[in-house]
């Protein structure tokens, strides 16, 4: 279609496509740019597009806070929460997709509705429970909470992927004497792997960016990158250079990860949705 379109239309589409992309991306670009400015350059008016880049903001950020400590906590929590949630969700989604009962639909919707509870509604009890079980300010505690908050969405996504796998393929396996376990691990999982991968990707992104629980359930030992950012925000909002450097450090890993995996993410996310 595009090949036959008039040249003027094509130029219009190109300009519009790039214009909107640049506009939406601009805040991120500006954050990265500002992170290489000195504090004086960062608040110059009018804002400078061209300047001598400096690493002074980064140096100060690293001096003030142990970035790697926070980053390691975030990675540990995100990976652990995602792995456990997937391990629990695969059998559940398998059961819903291939052994549906009258209550399957209701169960699924109920699961999703647990996710709609405002976390603040249960902040006090969760805090007290975490404290009494000595899980406050531990990666284990945060991973458990992240796992539980993401589990409903993971079950639902896996369910939509599994439904796309034709039941006869699984039945054929069973006829050949495969047990349920073999059927699940050897027939279903390889077929649904793209879906599982993209579910895991989405879960990783959501865990990485989760702010509410990580700010309220950790203080120092298990504090993740969201807490790292918070420590650079309120008292010195006007130190734009340091703020930008810290922000860039906090989002860079997941941003690059997202760029690399976006095709996979999309493929899985819409696998069930577009058919």
């Amino acid at each position, binding site marked *: 279609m*595009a*090949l036959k*379109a008039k040249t003027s239309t094509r130029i219009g*589409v*190109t300009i519009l*496509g*790039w214009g*909107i*992309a640049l506009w*939406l*991306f601009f*805040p*991120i670009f*500006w954050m990265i740019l500002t992170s290489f400015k000195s504090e004086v350059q960062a608040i110059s*008016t009018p804002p400078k597009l061209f300047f001598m880049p400096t690493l002074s903001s980064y140096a100060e950020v690293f001096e003030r806070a142990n970035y790697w400590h926070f980053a390691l906590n975030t990675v540990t929590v995100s990976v652990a929460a995602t792995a456990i949630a997937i391990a*629990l969700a695969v*059998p*559940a989604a398998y*059961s819903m997709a*291939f*052994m*549906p009962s009258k209550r399957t639909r209701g*169960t699924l*919707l109920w699961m*999703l509705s*647990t996710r709609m*509870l*405002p*976390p*603040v*509604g*249960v*902040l*006090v*009890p*969760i805090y*007290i429970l975490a404290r009494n079980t000595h899980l406050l300010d531990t990666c284990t505690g945060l991973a458990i909470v992240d796992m539980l908050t993401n589990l409903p*969405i993971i*079950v639902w996504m896996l369910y*939509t992927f599994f439904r796309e796998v034709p039941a006869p393929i699984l039945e054929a396996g*069973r*006829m050949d004497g495969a047990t*349920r376990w073999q059927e699940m691990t050897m027939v279903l999982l390889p077929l649904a792997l793209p879906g599982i991968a993209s579910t895991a990707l989405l879960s990783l992104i959501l865990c*990485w*960016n989760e*702010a*509410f629980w990580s700010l309220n359930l950790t203080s120092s030992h298990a504090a993740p*990158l969201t807490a790292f*950012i918070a420590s650079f*925000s309120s008292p010195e*909002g006007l130190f734009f250079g340091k*703020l930008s450097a810290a922000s860039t450090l906090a989002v860079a890993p997941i*941003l690059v990860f*997202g760029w690399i995996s*976006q095709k996979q993410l999309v*493929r899985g996310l*819409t696998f069930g*949705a*577009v*058919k």
Partner: protein
Amino acid sequence: MQAVLEHSPPAGATARTTKRTGFLLLSPSVLILLVWSIVPLIMTLWYSLQNYNLVDPTLHGFAGIDNYWYLLTDPDFLHALLNTLVLVAGVLVISIGGATLLAVLYDQEFFGRGIARIMVISPFFIMPTVSALLWKNLMLHPIYGVYSAMMRAVGLTPIDWLARFPLMTVMMIVAWEWLPFAVLILLTAVQSLDGEQREAARMDGAGPIARFRYIILPHLGRAISVVVMIETIYLLTIFAEISVTTAGGPGVASTNLAYLIYSRALLQFDVGGASAGGVVAIVIANIVAIFLVRAVARNLEA
């Protein structure tokens, strides 16, 4: 055939085994979610009926429905409820409306489309605290923000967006985060559309608008349901963006339910009142969930 015969006779027994296996596989997830949703709920219910303030230990004992009474007759509560609904509805409209158009735009071929697409979806990967700080300071700051500089450059007086239009500005920031997610989903849906079908419509003389209205839009139904479902779950509980940018203010102009409860619990140390708010928020979330689920479940099942 033989295999089928071997397996089919004890139909009742097989069905029962299947049922039990299905139940066993499902139960771990159901159980922990049940505990996760019930235990804190009961504790919240319990606290909500108590006089419990962390800074005033003399005040304790059974409060009955006092906490609820204070909350429901508080004008702030109604305001926060309204703000919550406005935020959810506003961001949904912006992100789905915008993403539908953008999906069609980025479906066209043009120079550097791959890079442009990656730029468009990037905000989705940014953590809420960072995007809120970014917009508040680097973009919208009335003196040093880039947008303010742009307005001065064309002779306008910069606006302190977060002070003048707090709710709308928070909505725009949240929409900036969630629009890319909707684009991600809807773009793939548009691309999965049969090229021949579109070509045929074009041959039949359908203009671009007719093609959009009658070919593309109906095709997007299910993808839009997915977006509505996932986004609503997150939008009902927006917290970090408000906390970082306006702290719910000025007054309660940008306070949603989540933030109202937070400010009660952690800023005023009123555990009883906050718990009552939590219970009310949970009830409201469930009402929304019922409506939402009814509306989109049909599409999700298809």
